[in-house]
């Protein structure tokens, strides 16, 4: 484990709140469609605080779609609709009157494909989320945030001498870690990561896995992965999804990672983790 500073938590540590008792993010009957075509249906599960939850399942089963429902970015897609309830610390983020912008400040996201802002330098990319709320005006404040988050994202050593270069000048894997640093800079309470390591070499992957473990001391982390070993290594809980009939994704099984991988309750889970399909 690397010993690096994690961003200070914005979650109040409630004394007496038992770890498992309270869900950080509680999903109730979520369904999502693209232009009236349902992609996921009736997904319900609880994401615990200070826990890494892995989302696994074959390609196209709706992992990304579920993730995008959790920070209200799904509705940005033209023709996309959501139904159901997602409670962040007891408050429904889909309740009328809830500002999606406020939700997204508290629930950060790293996308499946790296998406650095093309006209911004590496430094400005990292602090982009803070600059707009008027924070991080001075260069020293930017550097302070950048060093902390880029170290966390295992990118600092590679970019510390070229922070003013374009974010696009980095390799794909470096761009992905830049996007991770960018998401950390706003200090979200929940971090959604969509296959964050799919473009990374084994060394960076190991660093990102360490990062998840570090962050899980304070945050809830939900990570989509196609890599069973990775899910087993980093997560405490695992959700298995599968597109059933009509190609609509559903939650098949959800539970502690160790149990799901050693004693799956559902045949389809067993088939998937033993590589029999998908």
């Amino acid at each position, binding site marked *: 484990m690397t010993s690096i500073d994690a961003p200070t938590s914005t979650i109040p540590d409630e004394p007496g709140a038992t770890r498992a008792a309270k869900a950080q993010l509680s999903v109730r009957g979520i369904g999502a469609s693209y232009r009236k075509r349902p992609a996921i249906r009736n997904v319900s599960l609880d994401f615990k605080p200070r826990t890494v939850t892995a989302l696994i399942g074959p390609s196209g089963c709706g992992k990304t779609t579920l993730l995008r429902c959790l920070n209200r970015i799904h509705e*940005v897609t033209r023709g996309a609709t959501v139904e159901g309830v997602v409670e962040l610390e007891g408050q429904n983020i889909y309740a009328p009157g809830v500002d999606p912008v406020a939700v*997204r*400040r508290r629930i950060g*996201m790293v996308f499946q494909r790296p998406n*650095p*802002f093309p006209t911004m330098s590496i430094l400005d990319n990292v602090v*982009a989320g803070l600059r707009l709320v008027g924070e991080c005006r001075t260069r020293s404040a930017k550097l302070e945030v950048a060093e902390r988050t880029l170290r966390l994202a295992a990118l600092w050593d590679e970019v510390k001498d070229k922070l003013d270069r374009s974010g696009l000048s980095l390799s794909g894997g470096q761009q992905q870690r830049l996007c991770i640093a960018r998401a950390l800079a706003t200090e979200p309470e929940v971090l959604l990561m969509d296959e964050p390591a799919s473009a990374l070499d084994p060394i960076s992957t190991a660093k990102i896995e360490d990062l998840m473990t570090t962050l899980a001391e304070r945050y809830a982390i939900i990570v989509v992965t196609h890599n069973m070993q990775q899910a087993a290594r980093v997560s405490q809980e695992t959700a298995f999804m599968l597109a059933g009939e009509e190609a609509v994704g559903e939650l098949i099984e959800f539970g502690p990672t160790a149990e799901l991988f050693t004693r799956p309750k559902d045949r389809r889970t067993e088939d998937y983790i033993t590589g029999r399909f998908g």
Partner: protein
Amino acid sequence: MAVAMAQARSLRVRHARSAVGVVSTALCAGAAAAALLLILGYVVREGAASISIPFLTQVPHPVGIPGGGVANAIAGTGITVAIATLMAAPIGVLTGVYLAMYGRGAFASSIRFLSDVLAGVPSIAIGLFAYVVLVAPFKHFSAVSGSFAFAVLMLPVIIRTTEEAIRSVPVTIREGALALGLPVYATTVRVVIPAARAAIVTGLLLSIARVTGETAPLLFTAFGSQFWELNPRNPMAQLPLQIFNYAISPYPLWHEQAWGGALVLIVVVLVLNALARVALRSRTSR
């Protein structure tokens, strides 16, 4: 054996076809380039003799007196186009952004349709419109009425290129900004528009290049002048008008100067086009 021969034959046919394609397209491209070079070469040959420091710094001399230049016309065209750009750029860019980001409804469709129609209206008709609106009521020709006509000509170009520029910004970039908790407005202004900036600037430069050589809308708006005139509320010399007037005059000296003016105009437009390319190329490098 038979299969191998058939394959070899189909390969030969394919090679022959592609050779025909390459040659015919290359010929067409060559013809287009040759026509362009011919025009350019001719203008340079006829115009180069008139180009001199006095030609670029003096106002026209009266008929019969040798010398004189087109400095007032260059300045006039510069001023008229600059004012037109100030009028058209903000409206055009904002309209383009609106169409790209929010333009789904009937209102947006009708704006898009009107813009397309406007792009097809002959420039002389737009000059007439400017005359009716800004010249006739005041009974006074003015450079600013010419600018107005130019602005109307520029608008559809700017709207279209801006909309395209914004649309070509990948949706993942926009979502990345939204996911950071930036409001839609900030996402548009801080992330999406900057990402499209190079292409927007390119569109602006192309729209400027497009009107710089326009003559028809100036005939009854800016009107032209033989004197130094920098007040846009008055009639003002214009390079294309000067070329026109000199070219139809009976004096050989003026004919030469018309070629000189045409050369200046072509160089200006070429420079604008070159700048547009540079702007587009500097999109990512920094």
